[in-house]
């Protein structure tokens, strides 16, 4: 828009200079390769071989909670301290730090939900070569080899995982600058020297230190110089996974679900960055970072959680990856003894080695283990699972009203309308543009009248403007991040020159949270929620479009904690939304940047994608990867952010998005409008139908999120190996997914597709097409013809899914509506499911146990509803209006039995062609016990 161009002209030009390449794609030159990140280059130059590290067995200390042992680097005589913990729930924690660092090294706080409870370790045997420890139950043992240092975790005779087996443990210890450039103050130098000399064999250590390579004490990328006052501080460790051919996780990358080997290419990079027009299928860093990798084989699922928030690179190699099919066959024929193995190497720029080895053995176990460390998905308000309508930007109040009206006119439901950066007064978040949004409360009331909600953006860059309250308060309280010289760090972002609050400071977070109070955030109401964008943080004129690594957060450099900054922004914002309601209401906050633990605070989306078919495809592996590492509430901009989708792509995207957790349409400012009714009546009808399918399924979605919140199990799962861990055939497939256990979705992501081939897993299982009720056998690839009307979705035989088929204009309007139960029978005529109901938006389910949680089970021709949570209480007006039994035979009589002994006959309808039995109007309240008997 013109106003935007005029005001944002300088910013855009700058942004352009920073971000835009000539062609349509990311400008790779703006982002570092491993070679350009000197610590990665140094670390990667180390080749596997003999490790210089030796365990000093005589330093062993074994307490109830942990084992400690010193390691020595025989080349430079620097000592490290190894701490080993056996954690409850079949996990092992390995921490390695310098024994006596010159100053403390950063350990990531606020990610673990508590100090993980430990179990005692016991020493089984020890000799001069090492020792064997028992890992508690089972036959798991931990073998510590002394020279070279190495750890092996074994179960029976099998090695599950080895550390430093390739000798790539490398710990750049803190040192005093010796080259001519540095002349630290005398006192400081003396002190440090004293500290260093305390180390045994300190003299030799000094020699090693003198090898100064380029980039150790200063590094320049493009026009930015990183001053590196602490010198080289990087760490690295390798892990070998025998028997493993498939590893997943370490989001966020726009890449396949199964991670690729990185030999001869770039490692996967974890460094939260605002990447303009990102490219698909490569290991470049994106907006978020979760340093968790899962390994899977038919025998076992395990996880590695590398708790480090600095820039991190991950190398993956495999002994089978390079082999041709012929080579693999030869191995088979010759009975090659070589088992497949995946080797992983983690490299981080600073901090310590702190790794959690989650030993599974099932996928469910790994999810539970990771959840026990970092918490589970926040349980969102029900409305947040409905449809969201967003655009950069809805121009003014009139525009918002017109779009709201458009949805009603075209009878398309929606729950949230979103406002991007233009809503604020000159990008001063927490304010409203006085011309475009002069009466925000009236606007919000208008939405409330339709039982709808709004999200307004609040970004963490704060306009430097003394008349702006948020800025002057943050400045006067000293809450801004500092630059290396001690002044407030300033960078260029949407509002122009901006400060960045130090969200790592708990006082800052508390203050920020208080800004969401209704009397602080002018124009806000209960139905206004928040979106945190640009929280990598994005700094248009910073190195790699982010913050200088030598910026200072209290005692720490930005380098140490870069990847967790975004988590803190969302944490403080979610806390603000909770506090404003006096702790009553559940918050809803969307974030672009994230880290391990971000799942506790809300939803994430995959950032600025594009209106292209491949971008639609990539939404599946990107959200599946996030689901595997705890973040279930994931979505991609429906329609694509940049560029303009064809009507076909837009419709297909709605159909896919309707079955992905976070369902929001969004579009760039420069793109033509694309509200669902702008593409002719046919496309409007197709989109309406897609959105309605979502709304009808909201009870199931809500229940999945309740489950994810309780257990850490992902909502959107990788079909085969999470639910079917033995089915190797499809370990690398990522064009379909399961929602929970029971719905299999195969989106159509090809232009002009006439059909898709879906894989229906489970030998001996059956799947029912949810649109036609046609039954298909599991364990097969199935070609399904498709039209524009829908995408293939199947319900698993053996499941019961509740729906609310009376789709209304918003989810709140459907609160008291009755349920229809879809009972899909297994070949053994069995099915089960759940029903979860609460008020949909408060913490009462948790605090007052106000919820209904029931088991629905069909067996022996009897369907019953039984309470799963006897301690809970909640009353609902909803009732059961219909029961649809798929794969049924025709009964002669159907009886509804109530606990008080009352019985009544139910009318029914039987469709013999599809074997569908429909029971008419049981009419029972959804919260009570009942039984239906087919005779």
């Amino acid at each position, binding site marked *: 828009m013109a106003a935007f161009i005029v005001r944002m002209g300088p910013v855009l030009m700058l942004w352009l200079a920073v971000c835009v390449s000539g062609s349509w794609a990311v400008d790779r030159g703006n982002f570092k390769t491993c070679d350009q990140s000197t610590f990665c280059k140094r670390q990667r130059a180390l080749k596997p071989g003999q490790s210089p590290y030796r365990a000093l067995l005589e330093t062993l200390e074994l307490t109830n909670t942990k084992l400690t042992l010193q390691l020595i680097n025989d080349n430079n005589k620097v000592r490290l301290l190894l701490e080993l913990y056996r954690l409850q729930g079949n996990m092992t924690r390995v921490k390695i730090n310098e024994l006596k660092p010159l100053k403390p090294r950063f350990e990531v706080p606020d990610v673990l939900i508590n100090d993980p409870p430990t179990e005692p370790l016991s020493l089984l045997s020890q000799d001069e070569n090492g020792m064997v420890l028992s890992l508690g139950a089972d036959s798991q043992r931990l073998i510590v080899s002394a020279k070279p240092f190495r750890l092996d975790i074994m179960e029976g005779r099998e090695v599950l995982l080895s550390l430093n087996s390739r000798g790539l443990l490398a710990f750049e210890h803190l040192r005093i600058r010796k080259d001519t450039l540095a002349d630290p103050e005398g006192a400081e130098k003396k002190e440090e020297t004293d500290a260093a000399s305390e180390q045994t064999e300190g003299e030799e250590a000094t020699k090693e230190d003198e090898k100064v390579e380029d980039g150790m004490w200063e590094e320049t990328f493009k026009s930015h110089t990183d001053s590196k006052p602490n010198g080289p501080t990087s760490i690295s460790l390798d892990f070998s996974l025998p028997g493993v051919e498939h590893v997943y996780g370490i989001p966020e990358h726009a890449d396949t679900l199964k991670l690729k080997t990185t030999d001869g290419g770039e490692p996967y990079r974890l460094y939260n960055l605002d990447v303009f027009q990102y490219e698909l299928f490569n290991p470049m860093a994106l907006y978020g970072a979760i340093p968790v990798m899962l390994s899977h084989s038919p025998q076992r699922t395990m996880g590695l959680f590398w708790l480090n928030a600095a820039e991190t690179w991950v190398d993956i190699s495999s002994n089978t990856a390079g082999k041709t099919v012929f080579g693999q066959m030869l191995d088979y024929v010759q009975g090659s003894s070589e088992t497949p193995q995946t080797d992983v190497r983690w490299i981080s720029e600073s901090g310590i080695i702190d790794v959690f080895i989650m030993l599974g053995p099932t996928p469910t176990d790994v999810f539970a283990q990771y959840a026990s460390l970092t918490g589970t998905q926040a349980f969102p308000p029900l409305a947040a699972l409905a449809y969201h309508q967003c655009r950069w930007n809805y121009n003014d109040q009139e525009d918002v009203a017109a779009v709201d009206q458009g949805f009603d006119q075209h*009878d398309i439901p929606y729950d949230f309308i979103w406002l991007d950066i233009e809503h604020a007064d000159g990008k001063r978040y927490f304010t409203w543009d006085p*011309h475009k949004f002069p009466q925000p409360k009236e606007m919000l009331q208008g939405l409330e009248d339709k039982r709808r909600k709004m999200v307004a953006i609040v970004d963490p860059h704060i306009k430097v403007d003394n008349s702006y309250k948020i800025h002057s308060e943050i400045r006067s309280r000293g809450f801004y991040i500092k630059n290396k010289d001690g002044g407030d760090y300033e960078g260029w972002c949407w509002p122009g020159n901006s400060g960045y609050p130090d969200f790592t400071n708990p006082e800052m977070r508390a203050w920020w949270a208080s800004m969401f109070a209704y009397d602080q955030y002018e124009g806000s109401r209960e139905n206004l929620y928040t979106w945190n964008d640009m929280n990598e943080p994005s700094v248009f004129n910073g190195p790699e479009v982010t913050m200088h690594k030598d910026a200072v957060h209290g005692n720490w450099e930005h380098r140490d904690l870069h990847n967790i900054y975004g988590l803190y922004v969302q944490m403080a914002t979610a806390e603000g939304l909770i506090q404003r309601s006096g702790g009553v209401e559940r918050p809803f906050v969307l974030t672009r940047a994230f880290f391990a633990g971000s799942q506790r605070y809300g939803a994430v989306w995959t950032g600025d994608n594009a209106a292209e078919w491949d971008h639609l495809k990539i939404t599946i592996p990107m959200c599946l990867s996030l689901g595997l590492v705890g973040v279930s509430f994931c979505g991609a901009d429906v329609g694509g952010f940049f560029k303009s989708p064809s009507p076909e792509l837009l419709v297909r995207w709605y159909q896919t998005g309707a079955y992905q957790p976070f369902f929001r349409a969004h579009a760039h400012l420069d793109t033509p409008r694309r509200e669902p009714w702008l593409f002719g009546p046919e496309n409007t009808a197709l989109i309406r139908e897609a959105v309605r399918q979502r709304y009808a399924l909201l009870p199931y979605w809500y229940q999945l999120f309740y489950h994810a919140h309780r257990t850490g199990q992902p909502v959107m799962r990788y079909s085969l190996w999470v639910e079917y861990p033995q089915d190797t055939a499809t370990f690398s497939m990522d064009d379909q997914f399961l929602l929970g256990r029971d719905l299999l979705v195969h989106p159509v992501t090809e232009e002009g597709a006439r059909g898709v081939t879906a894989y229906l897993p489970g030998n001996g299982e059956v799947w029912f097409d949810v649109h036609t009720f046609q039954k298909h056998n599991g364990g097969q690839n199935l070609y399904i013809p498709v039209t524009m009307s829908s995408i293939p979705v199947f319900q698993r035989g053996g499941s019961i899914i509740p729906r609310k088929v009376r789709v209304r204009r918003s989810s709140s309007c459907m609160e008291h509506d009755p349920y229809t139960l879809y009972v899909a029978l297994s070949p053994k005529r069995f099915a089960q499911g759940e029903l979860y109901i609460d008020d949909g938006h408060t913490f009462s389910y948790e605090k007052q146990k106000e919820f209904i949680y029931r088991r629905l089970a069909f067996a022996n021709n009897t369907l019953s509803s039984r309470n799963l949570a006897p301690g809970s209480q909640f009353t609902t007006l909803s009732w059961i*209006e219909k029961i649809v039994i798929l794969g049924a035979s025709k009964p002669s009589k159907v009886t509804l039995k109530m606990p008080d002994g009352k019985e009544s006959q139910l009318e029914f309808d039987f469709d013999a062609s599809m074997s569908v039995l429909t029971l008419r109007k049981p009419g029972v309240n959804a919260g009570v016990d009942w039984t239906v008997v087919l005779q």
Partner: protein
Amino acid sequence: MHCPILIAVVIWSSCVDSQKIRGISLSYKRFYRERKSFLCIDGSKLIPFDQVNDDYCDCADGSDEPGTAACPDGRFYCTNLGYRPHYIPSSRVNDAICDCCDASDEYNSHTACQNTCRNLGQRERAEVKSQMRALDQGLRLKQQLIEEGVLTWRDKQAQLRDLQRVLDDLQTQLDDLRKEDARRKKEVDALRELEIGALETEENSHRSHIMNESPVSIFYELDSNRDGRLSAKEVRAKLTDIQDGERVLSEDEAVIRGRVPGRLVKGEPVLKAAVSAAEKAAAELKKVEDAYETVYMEIRDLREKLATDYGPEREFLFLYNQCFQLKVHEYFYELCPFNQVTQTSASGAEVSLGKWGSWAGSPQHRYSQMKYENGEPCWQGPTRNTVVTLTCGTETALRSVKEPGKCQYVAEFQTPVACRPALRQQGVHSEL
């Protein structure tokens, strides 16, 4: 006020006698005669009558549940006594949002809806009345403007004819003057040829004093490349010694056109006279040429404007040459119909939002929208354009300008000539 009570009574009594058939219009009542069974309107199914409006969807067409939200694509009839009856999707029944002004859609939700039909009806009738008044006035004004338009059109046609005549005259004059001018120039050239011939013979012997005496010869002397002009370079080359050292001759100062060396020939009376006559002729020619050009352009403009589509009765002709302004926050918009739309920011930067393109209304109402295209290009985007929607009103004014999509502007332009008698029908229709 006893009217609300009266309405309440009416609603109450109507509820009593149509308990089973809530949500249908009178014309559908025949399908719902209380019998033992009910046939879905599409004929697909026969159900017991007590399953009509029992909050369970039996008919595929939703006809058994006109008064509940049970059927997915059902519709509910709001009687809205005192206002306009209309259908709402049945999904809006009992959703705790008041949709029917008679509150009939929320008979079983916890929302207390007020019956607002009477107020709405009054307000709408008042609005329709004022709209009708405006429409009548607008149509009268439109008639005047059409009549004025006819006169203007005639004026313009006459003007065009006059201009054409003037142009013809000028053409004749031009022909004569061009001949005269050519003759005069030839005369001067001949005389000058003679003069220069004479000078050349004396050149060598009288070089030194010629320098002081004869400007023609000085000119000739300086014009080293003999192109009839003196360039700064030529002058500088010859006159280095008489420069004052600080001033450098500029190109403007140095160039002396060979065409007008008349000032240099003071001493030759015959040549002088000839030159002055030639100058006069040339000036005269220039004057007439300019006049011709002006008139020609005027005719072209006028023709172009007269070729524009001003509506079936040329009712939009009066907008010709007019501009209308509107200030929206920090922007100043100007619509010059059949010409262009511009936006001026507070800083004074003017941006074209499109030049007159075409009428762009629907085929039935072609003249209800104007399209202005090919304005200034957007950053990373297409060129700006503006769609102007014309609405009926008693005044002619630019009412609003918005930018719903980037660089896609929409404006509302109110004018009596957009008033159509058909609008009266629509207005009367909505009047109860």
